[in-house]
C-alpha cells in the first residue's frame, strides 16, 4: 500500500492537541516538560474546559508555559504559585485552577506556600515536576537531589552529613488533612503517559467537587542538567529515581 494512500485526513488517529500553540518549545530535546504540557493540553481539551481553566506558572524552565498552552495564565513570583492559585480559585470558584511548579520552585523556596495551601485544602490542582536538579540555573543541587547524585554544586555527589537528605514532598503533603488526591506519576513511555493522563484528569475533576487539594507529582528528567542523552536520562530515572520516588497513588479519597 502506498504511503500517500495512508496519509489522508480520514485516517488520522493522533495529532497535536489544538490547545498546544505552534510556538517551538524552548525546552531542551527530550525534556519531560514537553510531555507534561501535552498531557495537560489533552486533558483540558478532552474535558472541554479551555475557557474555564487558569494556570499559574512558576519560576524555572516552565516560566514560559503561557507560550505553549492556549488557556489563561498567571505568572507567580518564585514559589508563590499556590498563593496566586488560592486567590484565583476563591474569587472564581467556577474556574479550574492549577499550578505548574518544578522542584526548585515548589520543594525549595515555595515549601511554606505549598504546605499551607494543601493544609487549607484549597480546591486547586498542583502539578509538581520533580527532576532532582535545578534545571534552569545550570544543574545545581535541589532539595530533591538523590544521595550520591552529582550536580554542579555537589561535584562529589550529594552527602547526607553535608547537604541533608532528599525531600519527599509528595509523601509530606499526603499527610495533610486538606489534600484529597496525592499521586506520583512519570512520562517516559506510552504506558506511563496514559496513566498520568488519567491521574491529571481525576485531579481536575476533584477540583470542582470541593474535596480539597489534588497533588500530582511527575518524576521527570533534566537530561542537560544530568549531562546525559534524553534516552539515557530516562533509563537513569527508572534505575535511580523510581526506587526512592516510587510511582503510584499515595492518597485517594
Amino acid at each position: 500500500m502506498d504511503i500517500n494512500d495512508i496519509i489522508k485526513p480520514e485516517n488520522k488517529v493522533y495529532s497535536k492537541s489544538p490547545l498546544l500553540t505552534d510556538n517551538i518549545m524552548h525546552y531542551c530535546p527530550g525534556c519531560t516538560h514537553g510531555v507534561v504540557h501535552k498531557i495537560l493540553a489533552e486533558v483540558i481539551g478532552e474535558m472541554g474546559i479551555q475557557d474555564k481553566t487558569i494556570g499559574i506558572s512558576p519560576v524555572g524552565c516552565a516560566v514560559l508555559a503561557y507560550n505553549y498552552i492556549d488557556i489563561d495564565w498567571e505568572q507567580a513570583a518564585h514559589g508563590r504559585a499556590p498563593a496566586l492559585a488560592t486567590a484565583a480559585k476563591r474569587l472564581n470558584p467556577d474556574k479550574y485552577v492549577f499550578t505548574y511548579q518544578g522542584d526548585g520552585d515548589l520543594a525549595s523556596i515555595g515549601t511554606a506556600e505549598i504546605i499551607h495551601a494543601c493544609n487549607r485544602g484549597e480546591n486547586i490542582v498542583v502539578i509538581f515536576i520533580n527532576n532532582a536538579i535545578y534545571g534552569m540555573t545550570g544543574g545545581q543541587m535541589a532539595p530533591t537531589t538523590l544521595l550520591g547524585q552529582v550536580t554542579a554544586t555537589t561535584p562529589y555527589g550529594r552527602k547526607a552529613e553535608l547537604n541533608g537528605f532528599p525531600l519527599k514532598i509528595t509523601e509530606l503533603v499526603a499527610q495533610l488533612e486538606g489534600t484529597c488526591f496525592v499521586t506520583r506519576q512519570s512520562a517516559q513511555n506510552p504506558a506511563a503517559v496514559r496513566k498520568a493522563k488519567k491521574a491529571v484528569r481525576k485531579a481536575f475533576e476533584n477540583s470542582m467537587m470541593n474535596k480539597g487539594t489534588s497533588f500530582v507529582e511527575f518524576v521527570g528528567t533534566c537530561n542537560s542538567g544530568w549531562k546525559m542523552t534524553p534516552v539515557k536520562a530516562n533509563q537513569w530515572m527508572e534505575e535511580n529515581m523510581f526506587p526512592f520516588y516510587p510511582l503510584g497513588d499515595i492518597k485517594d479519597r
Partner: protein
Amino acid sequence: MAVKGAIVVDTERCKGCSVCIVNCPTQTIALSKKVNGKGYNFAYMANPDNCTGCTNCATVCPDSVITVYRVKI
C-alpha cells in the same frame, strides 16, 4: 485484519531527542542524516513498511511533532 500506519514528522519542530525511536515497538523510526533549520537530526520513517500506527511515538514526543495515520486493510 491487518493494519498499516504512517507517521508525519514536523521536521522543523523536531529536536531529535530519540525518545520516539526507543518507544517504537516495530523499529520504524530513525534519525535522519539530514538536519533541520536548527541543526537537529530529525526523526523520520526509516522502515515505513513496519509501521502499524500504534501512536506510541506521538504519545511520548515531548514536542508533539508527530501525526499518526492508520488504515485497516
